């Protein structure tokens, strides 16, 4: 990038092309202008005339200059000049750069670094010293005092700087600044992240104090991203029943913001993508990734799309994965009381964090299963025991609940032997009062859970006393009898609850402890052992400032066991995976973050934002200027060649260009889609009669008036109340909304396009009716064929028109509403053709009716309700009959063969008579 003060060129080497301008000048001068071409009839008289001066016309100097300017503009535009008034450094004294290189810097680190380098360049030009202070540092050691750097050192320092995957420490930065002892004033530039550390209620935030401290040095400019550019972060995740629920948080509100989350597995394969949107005034939004649980369990990380920061990355370890859990319940008797059943309790307890499948043991074991609950299953078959044993050895966790069935007699697949004979110890009589639970042992998988003393156990199965019983006991009652026993077998576990899964024997199932215990059991499965929480976890791999997973940082210490929420990510505890490759623990940055937006309120602080938004890109303007000059040149050349007769042509050309530009801008408009929806709405809110627009305004008006006249008659005399008739463009409009379409034939009828033809066929096949009116009864002589018929013949090629017959005497059309024998329109005598009756197809309604009597003209009435056209006989009776035919026609199209029974009325009466 070549820079002259505030002007810089992105592609400076192209400026070399400016050297070619003199060559262009020479070329343009040497080549004569193109001749104007003239058509001239008297050319014969010109042939052989002596041409005294053959010296070519020179291109005028001002046109040459114009063209050179044009070329220069294009070259300059290609060199991509950028005017950046913000580059200039104000103030005096050394430059102090305070850089936020916390997690949020990862997103646009390049820009932040470029900005810093540009500032250092500027300081270098003015020979100022540079101080660089960062908000985070990679080392755990205390910070060194700031020292002045030369420009080269500063550049190296900036190039070596990377964003770090934890929150910034403005307090430490502040200390460094305050320790600085500068002789005179300095210029401070804070390359901020736009975020401040959360303000405590009473005291001023450290970020604000830092701002004040920086301002005291001299001039302060704060460069920070616009509120909409401040990175988002993933603050929470929950493996819920309906999917992996993730919470995305931002620091500034007041605008809507879409966000997309991408989930991928260990190998980086994309598993799912989910979008969410921040409502205008919300700081958080949630997205739920709903994919099958097997796939969901493979999710190793979720990242906010198009970002690269540690906060926007959330890692997932095995503990958060939803595990498939099988459930087999023995209490068939309780099918009629499902809410009291064992299965119901287990279901409700596990559903939020596991996938529960039910079925037989064999069925369940066919698929991958982490934990299997057997509730009150007394005796397993040998094959079941064998397959269960194999499954446990491979890592399965089998949890059995006691119950009446188990108490009656059980198989051997238990962690402890149960007492036989009087094995069942229970009943209120045996205790003075029901037993409560003792606190869990430290060695128990349930360690850390609180055994509520509200839990009362009334019945239980008792274990045979044995030396190892104590080691197998995971939970016990206050009197020492085991309540939950477990045993590791192979890779898996075998666990027995000595009470029922429901509230019948104990109130354990009613307490929260029940749920927590079941969760612990599920966490046991598939390689996540209790060891994970017992000792310090060594760092396995850590996120870097860009959200990439890489080797553990050298500063990272083992993570102490315990509540991860209390550990604040920092140099000693960078986010990432901890533990061993087999059982790792995800430690995420997001949950610990709680930044707020930082808005400078101090007067005199110059605010700016990152990125090229502030820069003025001159390329576009140069290109526009070049284009305008090109246009001028074009017009001038035209004028020189004599193609521009006057001023009008020039203005016309300019107008054309303007119009072209405007139309190009306006061309794609969504109006059509909207109008088609509106059309569908209008056509379906009411029943409408429809006619086909022929393009002949007079005929279209007649059709419209005819159908609206018929509509009035229908509303007056029948229960059909059609809306205003709708004219259809047969090539474009949807036909399916209309039961009956009137189609007058004109000689201007264009052949149908294939698309229209297929849509008409579709319409006819699915129960639509079209009445073709050839309107040529007056023109066709005896046996002759009128023009409308000819048009129709041409039109129906390619349409699915069935075999047609003249309307028979007893056709439904003759009795659908009125009894009719002939069907006059404006003319009389024309035949009406219908499809051969087939009761099975389309309810016996002919899909095509062809007449020639110009019906619309007979029906047409004007706005005053008077007929618009005289009829051929002139009698009122004919018009009445025409309307009756119309009524019959609409009835026929709408009601089908309902009146066809009338055909058989004679026969029916005859039968009744007998």
């Amino acid at each position: 990038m070549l820079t002259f003060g505030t002007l810089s060129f992105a592609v400076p080497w192209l400026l070399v092309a400016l050297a070619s301008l003199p060559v262009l000048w020479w070329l343009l001068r040497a080549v004569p202008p193109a001749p104007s071409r003239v058509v001239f009839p008297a050319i014969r008289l010109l042939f052989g005339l002596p041409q005294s001066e053959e010296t070519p016309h020179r291109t005028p100097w001002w046109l040459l200059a114009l063209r050179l300017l044009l070329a220069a503009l294009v070259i300059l535009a290609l060199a991509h000049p950028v005017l950046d008034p913000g580059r200039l450094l104000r103030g005096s004294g050394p430059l102090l750069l305070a850089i936020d290189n916390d997690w949020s810097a990862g997103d646009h680190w390049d820009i932040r670094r470029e900005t810093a380098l540009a500032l250092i360049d500027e300081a270098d030009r003015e020979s100022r010293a540079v101080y660089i202070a960062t908000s985070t540092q990679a080392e755990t050691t205390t910070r060194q005092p700031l020292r002045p750097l030369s420009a080269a050192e500063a550049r190296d320092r900036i190039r070596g700087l990377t964003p770090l995957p934890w929150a910034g420490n403005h307090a430490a930065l502040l200390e460094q600044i305050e320790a600085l002892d500068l002789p005179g004033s300095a210029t401070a530039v804070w390359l901020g992240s736009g975020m401040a550390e959360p303000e405590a209620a009473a005291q001023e935030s450290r970020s604000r104090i830092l701002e004040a401290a920086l301002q005291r040095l001299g001039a302060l400019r704060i460069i920070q991203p616009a509120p909409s550019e401040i990175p988002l972060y993933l603050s929470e995740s929950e493996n819920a029943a309906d999917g992996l629920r993730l919470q995305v948080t931002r620091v500034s509100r007041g605008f809507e913001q879409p966000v997309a989350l991408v989930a991928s597995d260990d190998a980086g394969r994309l598993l799912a993508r989910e979008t969410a949107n921040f409502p205008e005034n919300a700081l958080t939004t949630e997205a739920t990734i709903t994919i099958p649980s097997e796939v969901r369990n493979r999710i190793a990380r979720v990242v906010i799309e198009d970002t690269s920061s540690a906060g926007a990355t959330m890692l997932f370890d095995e503990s958060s994965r939803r595990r498939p859990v099988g459930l087999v319940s023995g209490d068939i008797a309780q099918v009629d009381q499902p809410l009291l059943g064992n299965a119901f309790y287990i279901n409700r307890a596990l559903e939020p964090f596991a996938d529960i499948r039910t079925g037989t043991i064999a069925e369940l074991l066919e698929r991958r299963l982490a934990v299997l609950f057997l509730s009150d299953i007394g005796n397993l078959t040998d094959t079941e025991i064998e397959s269960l044993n194999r499954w446990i050895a491979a890592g399965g966790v089998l949890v059995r609940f006691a119950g009446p069935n188990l108490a009656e007699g059980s198989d051997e697949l238990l962690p402890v032997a149960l007492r036989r004979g009087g094995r069942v110890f229970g009943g209120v009589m045996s205790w003075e009062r029901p037993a409560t639970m003792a606190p869990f042992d430290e060695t128990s998988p349930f360690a850390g859970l609180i055994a509520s003393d509200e839990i009362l156990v009334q019945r239980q199965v008792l274990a045979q006393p044995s030396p190892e019983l104590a080691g197998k006991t995971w939970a016990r009652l206050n009197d020492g009898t085991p309540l939950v026993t477990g045993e590791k077998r192979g890779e898996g576990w075998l666990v027995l609850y000595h009470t029922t899964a429901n509230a019948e024997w104990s109130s354990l199932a009613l307490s929260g402890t029940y749920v927590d215990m079941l969760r612990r059991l599920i966490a046991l499965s598939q390689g996540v052992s209790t060891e994970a929480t017992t000792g310090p976890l060594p760092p396995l791999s850590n996120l870097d400032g860009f959200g990439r997973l890489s080797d553990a940082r050298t500063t990272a210490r083992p993570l102490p066991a315990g509540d991860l929420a209390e550990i604040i990510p920092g140099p000693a505890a960078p986010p990432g995976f901890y533990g061993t490759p087999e059982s790792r623990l995800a430690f995420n940055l997001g949950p610990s973050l709680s930044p707020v937006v930082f808005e400078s309120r101090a007067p005199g602080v110059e605010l700016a934002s990152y990125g090229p938004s502030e820069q003025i890109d001159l390329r576009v303007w140069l290109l526009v200027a070049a284009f305008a000059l090109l246009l001028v040149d074009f017009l001038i050349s035209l004028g020189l060649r004599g193609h521009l007769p006057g001023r009008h042509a020039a203005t016309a050309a300019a107008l054309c260009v303007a119009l072209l530009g405007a139309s190009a801008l306006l061309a794609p408009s969504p109006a059509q889609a909207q109008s088609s929806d509106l059309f569908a709405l209008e056509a379906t809110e009411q029943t409408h009669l429809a006619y086909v627009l022929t393009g002949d305004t007079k005929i279209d008006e007649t059709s419209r008036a005819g159908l609206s006249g018929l509509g009035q008659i229908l509303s007056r005399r029948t229960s059909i109340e059609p809306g205003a008739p709708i004219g259809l463009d047969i090539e474009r409009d949807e036909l399916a909304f209309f039961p009956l379409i009137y189609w007058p034939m004109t000689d201007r009828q264009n052949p149908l396009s294939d698309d229209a033809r297929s849509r008409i066929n579709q319409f006819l096949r699915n129960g639509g009716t079209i009445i073709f009116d050839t309107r040529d009864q007056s023109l066709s002589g005896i046996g002759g064929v009128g023009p409308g018929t000819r048009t129709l013949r041409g039109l129906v090629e390619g349409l699915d028109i069935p075999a047609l017959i003249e309307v028979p005497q007893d056709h439904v059309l003759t009795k659908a509403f009125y009894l009719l024998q002939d069907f006059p329109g404006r003319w009389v005598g024309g035949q009406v053709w219908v499809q051969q009756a087939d009761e099975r197809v389309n309810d016996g309604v002919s899909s095509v009716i062809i007449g020639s009597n110009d019906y619309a003209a007979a029906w047409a009435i004007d706005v005053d309700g008077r007929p618009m056209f005289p009829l051929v006989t002139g009698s009122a009776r004919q018009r009445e009959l025409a309307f009756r035919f119309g009524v019959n026609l609409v009835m026929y199209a709408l009601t089908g063969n309902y009146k066809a029974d009338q055909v058989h009325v004679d026969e029916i009466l005859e039968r009744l008579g007998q």
Partner: protein
Amino acid sequence: MSIIPDTPTTSDSPARAQGEAIAASFPPLLVAADRVASTVAQGVHGRRRVGQGETFWQYRRFEFGDSPQQIDWRRSARSDHLYVRQTEWEAAQSVWLWPDVSASMRYHSNRNLPEKQERAAVLTLALASLLTRGGERIALLDKPEPPATGRAVLDRIAMSVMRDMSREPDNEELPVPPPLPRYSTVVLISDFLVEEEKLLEFLGRLAARGVRGHLLQILDPSEVSLPFRGRTQFRGLESEGDLLVGRAEALRESYRERLEHLQSELRIFARRAQWTYACHHTDARPEPAMLSLFTNMAETLHARS
């Protein structure tokens, strides 16, 4: 009007469309021709002049040089003067018209000017209209139909001219005339921008048959003044070829001399053959041209009688 040209049998639809477009302009053209004709008719009173015929025309005072046989004694007896009885001239002549419709006639230098062929058509039809009013028999020189008179022939001629105008122009500049009867009249309306030898030979052949002729040269103003400037490439309309000129304005004088030479050749020919020659520019109104042409015709027709 029922004048719709028979649709050509060719399926070439652009040509047909053009034909129809021109046919649509036919009534205006005929009206324009009629308008030109009527102004002229009022000016010269058409054919109503003394000549050989049966119908009584007028009595005139005997003048010196009149033949004594012409004296109408019955009229003269009623007064003190001698009167001569004159009959109306009734000799019908056949007039052959030729409007040039070659490619070079389809030219106007400015959109506001009519094409040369349009002006030629208007003048031809106006002349035809005038002639039919006077009872002359008219025909087109390059068409086989024999001369006839009446409104019908006017329509036929109009239609024929229209059709020629709408047709693709040919480069055949000069017609092959049918065998013309002696003493018939030809009217040639053209720009006469053909090779000079061919033109004079064609005219000479006509004159040799004893045919009277009238030449009306129609020129576009730009063909008179050669207004072009600068480097110019000229192109003919009848595939004569191109001509590239460095400075068009330098040719202006010599071009004008050439044109005047052509015109004087035509004028000399006309004088020798007792024909008439006139030149008309399309930027002028057609009526004066029509008037002078018709007056010339009337004089020669009369002179012959």
